[in-house]
């Protein structure tokens, strides 16, 4: 099962002087259980694209299928789609509003029609999974730190038990430890619950470390779509459209250019270490060690 986009176009303010085509003939298949990163410069269409996936925006033309059903079909329950495809916006903590953290997380499931008790259970589960200490549950969400607020906001979406979790720059503005905590949490959701995750990010290093597929957006189109090392192989083209490769990828390319016999396509620190150990000691055990880990 999956989400399929078939020639999706979206035009802002059509038939006016301000007409802008934000999406152009997007064809994508998002398979169940994938961990996808979407990258692209500001204004490349990333946010427009993800808002189509749960029906918040309606394509100007083209079709979107969720588990084989056309979401623009009259009989299709968009409400159901929004329950199953959870979207965490940028700076989601700005949307916290209840008097206690617990009530805030209950809001989503209650809105889905669950009873107070059921919603409460969901909230407990979600707050526990994001690792918020229990003594905070009945405090005001506004007294929390930035990283904690963001975890509460993510819990609010998790409590709705989505099959697909979409996050728009979930780590913007967080300190390094906060960034790692959020990304590790998302990776765990993906691993343990088989949740499909779509991560929009401006950090090439984070994308390289976590996702198994990268979709590169440029001027409303999909420019590249593949595993990280394939995509970052095009680092020169990525630079031309405002992006980059991870730091270590540049390092490896520079070393290869200087004559070191090394696999230049490493995209994470761990891969780079393994490749460099192999190149420097002639032993590839380092690489095997990594795989065993």
């Amino acid at each position: 099962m999956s989400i399929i986009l078939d020639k999706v176009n979206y035009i802002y303010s059509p038939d006016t002087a301000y007409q802008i085509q934000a999406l152009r003939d997007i064809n994508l298949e998002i398979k169940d259980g994938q961990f996808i990163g979407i990258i692209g410069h500001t204004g490349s269409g990333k946010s427009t694209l993800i808002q189509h996936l749960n029906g918040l925006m309606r394509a100007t033309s083209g079709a979107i299928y969720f588990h084989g059903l056309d979401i623009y079909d009259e009989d299709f329950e968009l409400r159901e789609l929004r329950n199953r495809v959870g979207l965490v916006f940028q700076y989601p903590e700005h949307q916290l509003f209840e008097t206690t953290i617990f009530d805030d997380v209950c809001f989503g499931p209650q809105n889905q029609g669950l009873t107070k008790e059921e919603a409460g259970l969901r909230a407990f589960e979600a707050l526990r999974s994001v690792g918020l200490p229990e003594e905070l549950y009945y405090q005001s969400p506004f007294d929390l730190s930035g990283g904690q607020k963001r975890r509460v906001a993510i819990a609010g979406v998790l409590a709705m038990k989505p099959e697909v979790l979409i996050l728009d720059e979930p780590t913007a503005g967080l300190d390094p430890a906060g960034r790692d905590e959020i990304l590790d949490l998302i990776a765990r959701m993906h691993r343990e619950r088989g949740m499909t995750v779509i991560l929009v990010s401006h950090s090439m290093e984070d994308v390289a470390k976590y996702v198994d597929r990268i979709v590169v957006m440029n001027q409303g189109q999909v420019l590249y779509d593949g595993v990280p090392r394939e995509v970052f192989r095009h680092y020169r083209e990525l630079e031309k459209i405002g992006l980059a490769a991870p730091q270590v990828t540049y390092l490896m390319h520079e070393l290869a250019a200087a004559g070191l016999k090394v696999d230049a396509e490493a995209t994470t620190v761990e891969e780079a270490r393994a490749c460099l150990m192999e190149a420097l000691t002639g032993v590839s055990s380092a690489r095997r060690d990594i795989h065993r880990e």
Partner: protein
Amino acid sequence: MDAWGRGTVICMSIIRARQLVHEYIRRDEEGNVESISTALDHVDLDVKQGDFIAILGHNGSGKSTLAKHINALLTPSEGTLYVDGMDTSAEENIFPVRQAAGMVFQNPDNQIIASVVEEDVGFGPENIGVPTEEIWRRVEESLAAVGMTKYRHHSPNKLSGGQKQRVAIAGVVAMQPKCIVLDEPTAMLDPNGRADVIRTAHELNREKGVTIILITHYMEEVVDADKVFVMDSGKVVMQGTPRQIFSQVGKLKEYRLDVPQVTILADLLRQSGINIPIGVLTRQELVEAVLRAAQIS
């Protein structure tokens, strides 16, 4: 003479904090004190005129509170803060302090007010009664300094995040400050925008002698700073050159921070027995170290 053609002021420290304390006081509906949290806890800090300073610290460590003090948006609960020789707690100094120390915030969309780039840049000087001719001269110079001259007639909302942020910086530059505080100016930008903003800050520092105070969560942006301050629980807990700071990986992790990717990789290689020196900060340094280890050079 300073960068803006004014006479030299003999003042080594542009920023000088002594036992600076800031308390956020929460009150209930009757005005009784409900709780007090100490955001700055007896901070001593000196920034030399013309330096490029970076401040690191986790969310809630007090960085932004400190930044707001430098701009006199907040004033000391206890202790003193001098900006360009002026005591920020004296009411009459508030506007001169803000003119001496400009501020750029995280979200460019909250800082741009005019509908044309050059008008936005000219807003500050116009607001303090600079003569028209002089305003245009400053607008020209500021846009050139951030590399945005060719967008002067554009609408700011058609620009990319990095371009908007550079317009915001130009708006501050037009006030001819001695010091610019940038509070996470790249948090919302894509890689290109991030690089442009950091390069602009370095150019202003190098070419105009403007003191830069950069607050950031991106460790890579800090490696070229003259000095790094690390904050935790409202205190300055580490200070030194980037090399001194980033060679203390364990301590940084305790403070919820990190080191640049190349530093991590260099450390991993050294732990695996490769001869790589301590304190590698940049890609260039690691390339050279690895080539030496491989005996290619």
